[in-house]
């Protein structure tokens, strides 16, 4: 990794305030759809502990704390480190708290033997984690940006993914190994601070690939990945939500199930399947679409685990609604949507009333000046369901 990239990373971390101002640029009054998400009001977050019963998977009745996504990741890591001595936390710049503050105060609590910096070497970080997990530790490592995971691709694809399989009856496996990485657009990340490479990981079996959408989800899924999963986990954190998404998070140790989707909003006419950041846009687009065409109702599903994914929940939903769109920020070509769309068409064809649609990032690189056009936005997420709901009526 060149020094240039490294300084860019620091710039990215120091410009958090800028991230927010980019996201809240004054919106011309003419816009009805592409207005900024009001994270303080979106029903996808628990703004008060009173709404927690709406997510029955979360612990009920206990104390909660208002946390943003990076604080929730931090809380998840702290809980895991407290719970199990075998948990180790390391990566580039993790010791002082991480460039996104996800590991803040962990070294002071657990010491530099369990929370530490590594040299700048992604292949080394993942390689070392594999060896640690093979000897029974639970390494939770950080790749500073998903864009920089590629030097570790060999270790991920050829080594970690195949580890249990090739060890056969020797019994060694990588349970407890988690690779965390901030992913997705931030408004100004350009080529190397915006990528979402989840579909690349899904093409090789062996890892569970998880993308949380909210603080309470991040904590529960992360704890599940570290403490319960028998398989290694790639945990992709949408960095634009680190500070934007704030909600009440239960204080106690809890886990959320991996490989299980969550139905966020029931509906009868169309299923939208998404994960991570686009879910907020999807909900806004759904509200607009349902207002435009009264009487239609759209179901929204959060995939949560991208692979192995919850086929049953998605297929059941599509069998009910007859229409589906898969939405993600990463490129549409060979993306997660392609796999889901093909599976739906193979296994729920007779229920379909319209072609399954994929809505992803355009097939290009994330040029700095055009980021807002490249990723799906509320308008595109409004336009596509509207046209699909028109289909066949």
């Amino acid at each position, binding site marked *: 990794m060149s020094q240039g990239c490294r300084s860019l990373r620091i710039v990215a971390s120091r410009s958090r305030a800028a991230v927010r101002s980019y996201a809240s640029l004054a919106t011309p009054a003419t816009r009805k759809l592409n207005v900024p998400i009001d994270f303080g009001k979106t029903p996808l977050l628990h703004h008060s502990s009173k709404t927690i019963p709406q997510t029955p998977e979360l612990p009920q009745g206990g104390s909660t704390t208002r946390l943003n996504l990076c604080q929730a990741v931090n809380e998840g890591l702290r809980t895991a*480190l*407290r719970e199990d*001595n*075998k948990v*180790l936390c390391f990566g580039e710049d993790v*010791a*002082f708290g991480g460039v996104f503050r996800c590991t803040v105060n962990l*070294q*002071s*609590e*657990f*010491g*530099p*033997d*369990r929370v*530490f*910096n*590594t*040299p700048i*070497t992604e*292949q*080394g*970080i*993942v*390689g*070392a*984690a*594999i*060896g*640690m997990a*093979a*000897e*029974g*530790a639970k390494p939770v490592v950080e790749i500073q940006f998903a864009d920089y995971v590629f*030097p570790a691709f*060999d*270790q991920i694809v*050829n*080594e970690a993914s*195949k580890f*249990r*399989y*090739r*060890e*056969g*009856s*020797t*019994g*060694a*496996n990588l*349970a407890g190994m988690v690779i965390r990485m901030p992913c997705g657009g931030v408004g100004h990340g350009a080529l190397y601070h915006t990528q979402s490479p989840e579909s690349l990981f899904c093409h090789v*079996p*062996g890892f*569970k690939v998880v993308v949380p959408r909210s603080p309470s989800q991040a904590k529960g899924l992360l704890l599940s990945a570290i403490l319960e999963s*028998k*398989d290694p986990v790639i945990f992709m954190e949408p960095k634009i939500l680190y500070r934007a998404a704030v909600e009440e998070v239960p204080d106690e140790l809890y886990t959320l199930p991996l*490989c299980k989707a969550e139905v966020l909003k029931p509906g009868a006419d169309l299923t939208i399947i998404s994960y991570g950041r686009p879910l907020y846009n999807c909900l806004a687009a759904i509200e607009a679409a349902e207002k435009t065409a009264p009487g239609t109702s759209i179901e929204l599903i959060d995939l949560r685990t991208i692979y*192995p994914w919850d*086929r*049953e929940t998605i297929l059941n939903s599509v069998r009910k609604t007859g229409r589906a769109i898969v939405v993600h920020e990463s490129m549409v070509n060979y993306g997660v949507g392609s796999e889901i769309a093909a599976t739906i068409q193979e296994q729920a064809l007779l229920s379909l009333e319209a072609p399954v649609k994929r809505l992803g990032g355009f097939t290009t690189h994330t040029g700095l000046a055009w980021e807002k056009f490249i990723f799906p936005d509320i308008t595109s997420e409004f336009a596509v369901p509207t046209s699909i709901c028109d289909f066949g009526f």
Partner: protein
Amino acid sequence: MKSRAVLRPLAASCRYKHGVLLRRSGIRWASDTWSAGPAQKAGSDSVHFPGALKSKFTSTMRFQNPAEENAMPTYRIMDADGNIVDTTRDPQSASDDEIIQWYRTMLTVSIMDLIAFEAQRQGRFSFYMVSAGEEGIAVGSASALTPEDVCFLQYREQGVLLHRGFTLKEMMSQLFSNKDDNGKGRNMPVHYGSGKHNVHTISSPLATQIPQAAGAAYALKMQRLLNPNVPPRIVACYFGEGAASEGDFHAALNIAATKSCPIVFVCRNNGFAISTASIEQYKGDGIASRGLGYGIDTIRVDGNDIFAVRAVMLEARKRALEGDCKPILVEAMSYRVSHHSTSDDSFAYRAKREVEEWKRRDNPITRLRKWMEKKGIWDEDKEKEARASIRKEVLREFSAAEKVKKPPVRAMFEDVYEELTPETRAHMKELKRIIEKYPKEYSGISEYEGGLKSLEE
């Protein structure tokens, strides 16, 4: 002037609170961020640049040229004729019986190599790689390890496995990928592994095991930190000089040094990476010269001298576990007498004469044999008996393994994840349906344990 005082405390500086390991407050840790170093004093002969703490100023501009440095010497205890040259130490550090056992293990590797190479040529299994010329590195280094030490191998270290108790049956099962194979028939031949013997399964991608080994060593250190009753263990990590050109070598040595991992890196420098001679592999003084650059204690040893390899490895293991632990690099020099693999004809890139010369001139097996004969613990009769009995045993296990069934077809789908995914279950069902519909096209199914039945839910 105060230097950057860093403590490298291990067990003593940690305490438990509610069963959790916590750091002790007020102690400066090795990995603490460098902060507020001492101010530069006027007239000092050195400067505290954070990047090189002990560097002195000089007014002589001199580029350090590796060509002007002497190559790192190669340590040996006995010469090519089996005579002891380092008389300062007892070369044995082991009983006669143990040494004879090492010799028999080297012979076993060498005899198995001939049989297996020939068997591959006859198409009995798909692939093989021999260890000829490097038996001494494997057996000598393994003899210095405890059975609890963890090994990561590249693929040319059959001697390590046999020395640790990996049986010929296990080896042959792996080569034939039958149902007794520890790897469940999933890996190419020679990709051995054994949980029982603390040897992780070999994988083909070169050098990937090196950072993994560093991480494993860190985990062993942590196990002891959490429970001082755990016996001290190291990781031994083997690789060739060609693999050392991979980025993973760099990553591993740097991480092992910065995180003080108890690991011994053993580089087998045999002069060739397939067809690429070492002159095309690097320009520096072998692999050993790099160790110093990473701040790693390093030694070069004569890999054909089993006593030297063992002595170096014993000392390396001891040093790796001292204090806060640290990595050690051992470069063991040898010559790859054999072809790279059964898919390679090495005479396409090197003279047959050169290889014959090496075979005749120096070889770890004949060198130890000469020493044993001089000592009067070995002779021609014992040699003949050993060769005959080993050959018989190898052939017996070979024939037995060839007759054993393949693993169940189901094992093809298992262990990708801990549990079969719904998608994989659907694949199993589909495969079963196709085979049932076209049984004649899949008549070989009966060679797999359980036949088609293993695909049932």
